[in-house]
C-alpha cells in the first residue's frame, strides 16, 4: 500500500500559512464506517502520532475486542465501550496539496445535533454508504442536512465493497440511487468512489479488486475539495456585535460577513434605515487602519455622528442594504424533543440579533430520512419543515439565496439551540400574533366623560404633505378644545416615531405599521372620551382606510390640501432640502406619491387662510358630525 507521507518540499510552514486548509466532514448512516475511514486516512497519510496505533491495539487487546480504526477518534470512554461515535471530533492530516481538518460526525439518529455541529463547520463533505446495506434513512437525512447547512461540495464513498465481492453492479445501483437523491436536493456529488476502508482499497490507491473503477481515490477526491471563500463579492454586511466606549471613542464592533468597508464610506444601519459615514476603522496596537477591510475580518469602526444603534443591527451600503422585516419564511431543521407547532413562542437569532417570535404557520413538515414525505401540523425532532415566523421586533436579514451568511437563523428554546435554517423570503411587516389577551375595560362610563368634556370621543386625522400645516392646525385645535373644557390629545407622527414607533423605518410595510399603531392608540383615547388629534403625513390611502376601520365611527379625516410648492417653500423641518440633496430616501413630497383622500370629512388648504379660520372650520365640522355638543359651541360663543 502506498503511503502519502508529508515531505519537506510540501511546506516549510506547518499547518499552512500558505497551504490551503480545507475542512471536511464525514457523514452517513450509523455503522457504515465513518470513523473507520477517518482512521484509515490518518494511517495512509502517515499522520498518526508515534505510538498511537500500538496504544490502541493494546487497548483493544485488553478489552478482548478486535482492533477498530474508529478507536482513534472515539476518544470518550463511553464511545469506545459502546462502539459508536457520540460527539463530533476533529483531526488533522495532510495530503499532497493541502492541510485537511477531518470532522468525524456521529451517524446515530440520537446524535443528529452533534452531526450538525460538526457538518456546519465544513467546506465539503464525504457521505459514506455501506455497500451491503445501501442508502438508509440517516444517509438521506444527512444528505438533506448538508443542503440545509449550505455544504455544496459532496463526495460519496460506497464502503465495505469487500462485503459485496467488489461488485460493479451493486456499486452502480447505490451510486444511481444516492446521486438522484442528492441532485433532487440541489447537491451534485463531485464523485462516487468504491472503497473498503478496513482494507484500504480506494482510500489512497486503486487496488486490483476495484480495477473496474477509474475515478479518483478518496485522498484524490479530498484534494479536489476547495476551502470556502469569504463572500467578498457580495454587498457589505456588518452585523453589530457591540458598541464599546472604553475611552473617548465610540467603537462599533462586528465581523464583516460579506463585502468590504473603509473609512469615508456612507453606510446605512438596518433595520432603522439611519444613514452615517464611517469616520475611522479602529484597531490595536496600531490605529486607525487605512484601506478596505474585507469579508471575514473582525473590525471596529467609528461613525461621523452620534446615533442610536445596537447589537443586532446590520450595517450595509445605501442602495444595497439588507431587508427589514417582521415576518420571515424559513426552511428549518428541528432538534428539540418537543415538536415545533403552530403558535409556539420561540427565540430567533439572526446574526447577532435576537428577537422573540411566534410560529404563525407550518407549511411543510417532512422526515428527510423517509422515502415518502408526510405532511404534518408539527415538525418533529430531527425532521425539517418550512415555517412562517412573526417577529416581535423588526430585524435586518437577507434571503439565503442572496446572502448565505445573513440569510440563516437559529431557534432557541429555554436558552438552548433547538433548530436552525435558511431564510427563504422576507415579508411585509405584519403584526405579531396576540396570545392570551384579556382586555380590561375602563371603570368609567362614556356618558360620565362626555358630561365633563362636553364632547364625544373622536379620532381627528390630519393628513397631507410634509409642511402642509398639519402640526400647526393640530396644535391650534388642541388649544381651542382645551380652552373650551375639552380633553384633546395630540398624537404627532414624528413624536411617536421617537418612542413607540422608534423601531420603524420608511418602507411601505413600516409606514403601514406606523399608521396602524397611531390609529390604535388614537382609537383607544377616543373610546375613552378624548379627542385624539393625529397629525401624520399618512400618504397611503390604503393605510388611512385601515385607520378608519380601526377607529370606525369615531374617525374624522381632514385633508390638508396645501399645494406641494407651498409646502416645499415652508419646509419647517428642512426635509425637502435634504431630500433634494439626496440625503433622505423615501421622503414623501418629492419621492413617494401622496394619495389624496376621497370621502374625507373635510378639506383645508392652508395657503390661503389663517390658522384661526381653519381651526374654526374644523370645529364646525366636529359639531356638525356629532362630536362637539351644541351647548359647548354656545358656551364658547359666550366666553
Amino acid at each position: 500500500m502506498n503511503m502519502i507521507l508529508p515531505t519537506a518540499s510540501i511546506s516549510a510552514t506547518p499547518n499552512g500559512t500558505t497551504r490551503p486548509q480545507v475542512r471536511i466532514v464525514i457523514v452517513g448512516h450509523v455503522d457504515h464506517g465513518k470513523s473507520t475511514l477517518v482512521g484509515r486516512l490518518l494511517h495512509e497519510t502517515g499522520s498518526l502520532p508515534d505510538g498511537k496505533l500500538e496504544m490502541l491495539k493494546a487497548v483493544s487487546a485488553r478489552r478482548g475486542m478486535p482492533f477498530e480504526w474508529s478507536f482513534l477518534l472515539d476518544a470518550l470512554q463511553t464511545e469506545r465501550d459502546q462502539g459508536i461515535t457520540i460527539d463530533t471530533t476533529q483531526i488533522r492530516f495532510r495530503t499532497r496539496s493541502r492541510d485537511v481538518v477531518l470532522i468525524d460526525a456521529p451517524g446515530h439518529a440520537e446524535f443528529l445535533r452533534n452531526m450538525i455541529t460538526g457538518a456546519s463547520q465544513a467546506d465539503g463533505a464525504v457521505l459514506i454508504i455501506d455497500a451491503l446495506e445501501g442508502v438508509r434513512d440517516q444517509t438521506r437525512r444527512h444528505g438533506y442536512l448538508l443542503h440545509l447547512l449550505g455544504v455544496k461540495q459532496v463526495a460519496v464513498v460506497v464502503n465495505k465493497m469487500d462485503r459485496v465481492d467488489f461488485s460493479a453492479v451493486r456499486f452502480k445501483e447505490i451510486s444511481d440511487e444516492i446521486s438522484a437523491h442528492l441532485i433532487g436536493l440541489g447537491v451534485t456529488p463531485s464523485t462516487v468512489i468504491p472503497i473498503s476502508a478496513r482494507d484500504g482499497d480506494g482510500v489512497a490507491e486503486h487496488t486490483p479488486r476495484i480495477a473496474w473503477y477509474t475515478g479518483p481515490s478518496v485522498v484524490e477526491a479530498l484534494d479536489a475539495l476547495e476551502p470556502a471563500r469569504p463572500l467578498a463579492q457580495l454587498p457589505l454586511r456588518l452585523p453589530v456585535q457591540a458598541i464599546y466606549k472604553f475611552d473617548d471613542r465610540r467603537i462599533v464592533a462586528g465581523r464583516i460577513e460579506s463585502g468590504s468597508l473603509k473609512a469615508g464610506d456612507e453606510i446605512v444601519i438596518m433595520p432603522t434605515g439611519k444613514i452615517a459615514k464611517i469616520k475611522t476603522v479602529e484597531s490595536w496596537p496600531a490605529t486607525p487602519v487605512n484601506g478596505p477591510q474585507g469579508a471575514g475580518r473582525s473590525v471596529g469602526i467609528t461613525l461621523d455622528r452620534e446615533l442610536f444603534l445596537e447589537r443586532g443591527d446590520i450595517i450595509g451600503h445605501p442602495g444595497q442594504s439588507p431587508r427589514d422585516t417582521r415576518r420571515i419564511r424559513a426552511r428549518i431543521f428541528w432538534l428539540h424533543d418537543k415538536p415545533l407547532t403552530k403558535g409556539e413562542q420561540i427565540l430567533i437569532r439572526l446574526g447577532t440579533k435576537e428577537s422573540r417570535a411566534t410560529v404563525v404557520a407550518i407549511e411543510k413538515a417532512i422526515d428527510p430520512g423517509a422515502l415518502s414525505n408526510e405532511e404534518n401540523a408539527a415538525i418533529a425532532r430531527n425532521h425539517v419543515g418550512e415555517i412562517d415566523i412573526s417577529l416581535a421586533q423588526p430585524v435586518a436579514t437577507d434571503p439565503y439565496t442572496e446572502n448565505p451568511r445573513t440569510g440563516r437563523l437559529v431557534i432557541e428554546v429555554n436558552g438552548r439551540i433547538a433548530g436552525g435554517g435558511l431564510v427563504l423570503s422576507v415579508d411585509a411587516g405584519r403584526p405579531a400574533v396576540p396570545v392570551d389577551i384579556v382586555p380590561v375595560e375602563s371603570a368609567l362610563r362614556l356618558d360620565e366623560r362626555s358630561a365633563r368634556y362636553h364632547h364625544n370621543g373622536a379620532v381627528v386625522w390630519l393628513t397631507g404633505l410634509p409642511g402642509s400645516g398639519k402640526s400647526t392646525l393640530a396644535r391650534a385645535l388642541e388649544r381651542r378644545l382645551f380652552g373650551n373644557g375639552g380633553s384633546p390629545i395630540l398624537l404627532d407622527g414624528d413624536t411617536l416615531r421617537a418612542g413607540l414607533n422608534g423601531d420603524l423605518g420608511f418602507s411601505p410595510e413600516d409606514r403601514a405599521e406606523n399608521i396602524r399603531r397611531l390609529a390604535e392608540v388614537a382609537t383607544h383615547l377616543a373610546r375613552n372620551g378624548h379627542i385624539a388629534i393625529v397629525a401624520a403625513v399618512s400618504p397611503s390611502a390604503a393605510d388611512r382606510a385601515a385607520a378608519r376601520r380601526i377607529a370606525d365611527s369615531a374617525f374624522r379625516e381632514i385633508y390638508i390640501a396645501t399645494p406641494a410648492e407651498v409646502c416645499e417653500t415652508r419646509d419647517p423641518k428642512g426635509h425637502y432640502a435634504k431630500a433634494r440633496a439626496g440625503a433622505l430616501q423615501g421622503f414623501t413630497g418629492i419621492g413617494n406619491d401622496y394619495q389624496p383622500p376621497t370621502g374625507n370629512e373635510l378639506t383645508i388648504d392652508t395657503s390661503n387662510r389663517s390658522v384661526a379660520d381653519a381651526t374654526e372650520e374644523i370645529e364646525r365640522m366636529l359639531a356638525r358630525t356629532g362630536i362637539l355638543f351644541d351647548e359647548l359651541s354656545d358656551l364658547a360663543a359666550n366666553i
Partner: protein
Amino acid sequence: MDHLDELEAQSIYILREAFARLKKLALLWSLGKDSNVMIWLARKAFFGRVPFPALHVDTGKKFPEMYAFRDRFGKEWDLDLRVEPCPPIDSVDPTLPPAARSAARKTEGLKLALVKHGFDGLIAGIRRDEEATRAKERVFSPRGLEGEWDVRDQPPEFWDHFNASPPQGAHLRIHPILHWTEADIWAYTKRENIPIIPLYLTKDGKRYRSLGDSDITFPVASTASNIDEILTELDGTKVPERAGRALDHETEDAFERLRVAGYL
C-alpha cells in the same frame, strides 16, 4: 486574509460574543503560550484593554520562570490579575492516579474561585489538536452546577451561534482558540511578537512543549532555540504535544475523567 488572519478574526468574534452575552467573565491565564496568545487576542478584540479579570488558579508548583512572567506582564499588559490558590492534595479524589490527582487540585481551585467571584463564564485556552477529548469540545461549553462536563449531552452549536445561557449557579467555558493548532500558536506568537517564557526554548538539548506543574511536567528532546526552529521541529514531529504531561498518560481514561470533573 491569510490563515492566521482568519484564526484571529474568528477568535475575536468569539471573545466579543462572550463579552456581549455573559454577565461576569474571567480569562484563565495559565501563563503558557496558549493563554498568552488568548490575552493578546482579547486586547485586539477590545482595542487594547482586557475588560475582564485574568484569573490565575495557582497550584503553587509552577516553574519560577512562569511566576516571573506573570508578575511582569500582569503589570505591563495592565491586567486585572486575580491569583487564587488551590486546596491541598488531601481534598482531591483519591481514586485518581498520582499525577492526575495532583492536576485535579486545579479543578478544585477553579471551583473555589468560581464560588468566590460568581463568574458565569470562564475563557480557557484549550485547543482541539491537543488532546482527543478536547477535540470534542464546543466553543461555548456549558458546565453543570459542580463544574462538570456532560459530554453525552452537549448542545448543538453551529454557524457561530453559541449557547450562552448557563443555568443559575452554573457556568460556561468559552474556548476562543479551540480551532488553533500548536503550530498556529507559534506562528502567531512570532508574527505578533508576543513575549514567551524561555522554558519553551532549548536548554541542554531539551525544551518544554507544554507547561504545567513543575513536578509532573517534563521537557522533550529539542534543539529549537527560537520560534522558527520550533516550527520546523513541529513540521516533522510525530510526538504529541502533551507527551511531557504525565497526567495525560497514566491510564486510558485519566484525562477524560479529569475533564468530565471540570478540568480544562
